[in-house]
C-alpha cells in the first residue's frame, strides 16, 4: 500500500517535471472551472471564437519562442505586424493584391534579417536592437499611411477574413487554419530537424555549440528572420480580418506574444521550451479573456488577471526548478 503511494508520488513528480504536461494540466483545470461556471464555454462556436482570437498572437509566438530559445528577444513583432498590414493595404491600391501580400511578407523577412544582423553580427543586445527596429518599423508604417487607416477590401482579404463552411451551421475562420498549420510545422522543425536540435544547443551554450561545429550565427539570424516573417503573416491576417490597416495596428501586442511564450514554459535564459507549450500559453490567455466576456466580469480586471497569470505560471515553474536543485 505504502509502496503504491510512493510509486504514485514518483509518477506525479515525473509528470510535474515534464513542463508541457504541467502547463496542460493548468489549462485543463482552468477550462473545467470555467465550464462549471458557464456551460456556454465548451460549445463549438465558442471554441472557434477563442481560436480565432488567439490566432494572431499564437502565430507570432512561434517565432518569438524561437528567438527566446536562442536567448534573444524580439520586441519588433508588433511593429512588423503594423508595417506588414499597411504595406499590403497600401500596395493593393496600385497592384495585384496577392503581390501586395507577398511584398508585405517580404518586409517582415527583411526586418527579421536586420534584427539578426544587428544583434548577431554587430553585437547590439537584442532588447535594444529590436527596440530600435520596432520604432523604425512603426515609423515606416506611419510614413506609408500618413497616419490614416487604409482599406483592405480585395480578394486577398480572404486570408484573414475568409470562412470555411463546416458541416452544420459552423464556419471555420481561415486564420485558425493558418495557425494550426504553422504550429504543426513549428513542432516538426523543432523536434525532428537538425535546425531544431541546433537552436536548442545554441540557446543552451553558444560557445559549446560553436565548438561542436554548429554555425551559431546562422542559427540565430534564421530565428530572427522566422520571427519577422511570422509577424508579417499575422499582419496580413489582421488586415484581411478587419478589412483595414493602420500604423498603430500592432501596438502593444508584443507584450501579449512574449506573455504567451513565457506562460508556455520557455525560459528567458534560453535553451528550454517547446512549441506545444507556447500553444498552451496562448490558449490559456485566450481562455481567460473569453471567460471574462462569458461570465460578465468587468473588462477592467482583464489586464490585471493576465499579469497575475504570468507571475503565477512562471513563479511555479521557478519554484519547481529550485526544488530540483536544492
Amino acid at each position: 500500500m505504502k509502496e503504491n503511494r510512493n510509486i504514485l508520488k514518483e509518477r506525479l513528480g515525473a509528470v510535474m517535471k515534464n513542463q508541457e504536461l504541467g502547463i496542460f494540466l493548468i489549462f485543463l483545470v482552468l477550462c473545467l472551472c470555467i465550464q462549471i461556471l458557464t456551460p456556454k464555454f465548451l460549445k463549438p462556436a465558442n471554441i472557434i471564437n477563442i481560436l480565432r482570437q488567439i490566432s494572431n498572437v499564437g502565430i507570432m509566438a512561434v517565432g518569438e519562442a524561437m528567438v527566446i530559445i536562442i536567448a534573444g528577444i524580439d520586441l519588433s513583432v508588433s511593429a512588423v505586424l503594423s508595417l506588414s498590414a499597411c504595406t499590403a493595404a497600401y500596395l493593393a491600391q496600385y497592384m495585384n493584391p496577392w503581390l501586395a501580400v507577398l511584398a508585405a511578407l517580404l518586409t517582415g523577412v527583411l526586418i527579421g534579417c536586420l534584427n539578426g544582423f544587428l544583434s548577431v553580427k554587430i553585437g547590439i543586445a537584442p532588447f535594444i536592437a529590436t527596440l530600435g527596429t520596432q520604432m523604425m518599423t512603426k515609423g515606416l508604417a506611419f510614413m506609408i499611411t500618413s497616419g490614416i487607416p487604409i482599406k483592405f477590401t480585395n480578394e486577398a482579404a480572404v486570408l484573414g477574413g475568409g470562412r470555411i463552411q463546416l458541416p452544420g451551421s459552423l464556419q471555420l475562420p481561415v486564420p485558425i487554419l493558418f495557425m494550426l498549420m504553422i504550429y504543426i510545422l513549428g513542432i516538426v522543425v523543432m523536434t525532428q530537424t537538425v535546425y531544431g536540435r541546433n537552436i536548442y544547443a545554441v540557446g543552451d551554450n553558444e560557445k559549446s555549440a560553436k565548438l561542436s561545429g554548429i554555425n551559431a550565427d546562422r542559427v540565430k539570424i534564421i530565428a530572427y528572420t522566422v520571427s519577422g516573417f511570422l509577424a508579417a503573416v499575422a499582419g496580413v491576417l489582421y488586415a484581411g480580418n478587419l478589412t483595414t490597416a493602420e500604423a498603430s495596428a500592432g501596438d502593444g501586442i508584443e507584450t501579449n506574444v512574449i506573455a504567451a511564450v513565457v506562460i508556455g514554459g520557455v525560459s528567458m535564459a534560453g535553451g528550454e521550451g517547446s512549441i506545444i507549450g507556447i500553444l498552451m500559453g496562448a490558449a490559456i490567455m485566450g481562455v481567460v479573456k473569453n471567460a471574462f466576456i462569458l461570465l460578465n466580469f468587468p473588462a477592467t480586471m482583464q489586464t490585471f488577471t493576465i499579469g497575475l497569470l504570468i507571475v503565477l505560471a512562471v513563479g511555479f515553474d521557478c519554484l519547481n526548478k529550485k526544488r530540483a536543485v536544492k
Partner: protein
Amino acid sequence: MDKQIILETRNVRKTFPGVTALDGINLVFKSGEVHAIIGENGAGKSTLMNILSGVYAPDAGSEIFHKGERVEFHSTADAAKHKIAMIHQENSLVQHLTVYENVFLGHFIKKGSFVDKKAMSAATEELLKKMHIDWIKPGMYVKNLSSSEQQLVEIIKALSLDPEVMILDEPTASLTVKETEILMNIIRELKEKNTAVVFISHHLEELFEIGDVISVLRDGQYIGTYNLEEIDIPGLISLMVGRELKNNAQQKTEEETEKRRKTKENDVVLEVEDFCLKGKVSHVSFQLHRGEILGFAGLVGAGRTELMECIYGYNRASSGTLRVKGQKMRFKTPKNAVKNGIGMLSEDRKLNGILPLHSVQDNINAAVWPRMKRNLLFVSKTKERRNSAGFIERLNVKTPTPGVKIRTLSGGNQQKALFGRILSIHPEVLILDEPTHGIDVGAKQEIYNMIHTLADEGISVLLVSSELPELITLSHRIIVMCEGRVTGQLEFPEFNQEDILSFASGTAEA
C-alpha cells in the same frame, strides 16, 4: 595550544532525486588544523562543503555541531554568522565591481548611511600587503583580472571575514605555481591563527605539503580519517578508488621509445606555419604526424589555447598558413574544421564544453546531427540513440540513462561524454585543451588510456596541459611556449620537468 573542536558533522546525509550524494558522514574539524578531504569526482566532497557553508540543507536526521552546539544553516549568511567562510570551486565575484567592493560585498563598511570607500580600500590594501600580493590593487575592476588573480581576490574576500573555519574547494585548480605558493603561505598563517582549514584538492602532493589530517570519501560514503604522517600517496589512491591503480609512471622501455619515435616517420597530417594572433601568438610553426601525441607546455597565458582556437577556426589568426594532409586550408569557423576531421575539446568544461540543459545523449550527438538524417530533413532518433549508447558503453560514461541532463553527472563523466562528442565526428586530428582539468584520479587514468588507444589507432593529438606529469606521460614530443612564442621542443624520452619549466618561463630558449 589545545586543539578545540569547532565543527562536527554527525550522520550527515544528502539525497538528490535519484542519487544519494552523501550517506552518513561523520567528520570533526579542529582549530589550528588543516583537514584535507579527498575523493573521486562524484564522491560528495563539494556537496559536503556546500552543506557546511549553508548552500544546501542536509536531509532530516543529519546533525551539525558548532563548538558542541547543534546548529542548522539555512543560508550562507547563517554559516557566516558562525564564522564559516568558503571559497568555491567556481568564481563567485561580481565582475563589474572593484576588488575592494567585492571583498566587502555583503558587509560594506559604512560611515553614517553612506559607504566608506576609503576605509574599505585601505583595509583591502592591508590584506593584500599581508599576503605579499602587490600586483593587485584594491581599485582594479575584477573583470580586468585573470582567472587566477580573481581566485586570489576570492580568498582575500573570505579572509576579510576573519573566519574560524575556512573551507577551500579546489582553490589551486586555476592558480599558477607562484600563486599556489602564496596560497600555501596563507594557509600556514591561518593555521597559526588557530583557524580550522578544510582543504579539497585533487593534487595529492599539495595535501601532503600542507595538511595535518586527511579524510577520504568514496561514492558518498565516509571511508576514514588518517594522519598524513601515517599514510602515503598510493595508499590514499587505493582508498579513494576502492581498488589498486596501476602505477602511472612513464614507461621508458625501449619498445615504447621505438614506438613513439616511429610516429615521427609517419606522414604529416597537420602543418602549421608562422601562425600569429595579435598580442597572443607570434610566429608559431610545427608539424603533426599521423598517430602522434604532440604536447604543448607553458604557463597560464602562454597563448596555447589561443593558438589552438586559431587552428580550429574559433579565432581568426592574423597571419599564417595551415596545411591539412598537404592541402592548404583556412578554417573560418569550427564547422569547417569539423568537416575536415578535426575535433576540439576546449578548456573549461562548464563554460565551453557541456550543454547543461541537454541530456547526455544530446551532448554526445551535438556535433553530428547533420550526419544523422534519415531523409533530407529529419534526424533519425534510432541513429541518435545508437551513437550515444555506443559511446556511453565504450567510454564507460556512468549515467543512469542517456536521457538525464548532463549537469547531474560528475565532472569526469561529463568529460567522457564530451570525448564521445568529438569522437562521433570520426576525427583524424584531436585538439585536447586541458582534458583532465578538475577530474579525479580514476577518470583521469581512463582518459589517459583512451588517448593512448586513439593515437595507436592513428589519430593525431594536439595536447595542451598545465600538468607536466600528464604531458610527460602522454606526449611523443613536447613543444614549450612562452608569451606566444615557441621557446623549446623536447623529444621522448628526453622530457624533464626542469627543462620544460625553464623554457616555459622564458629563461632558456632552444
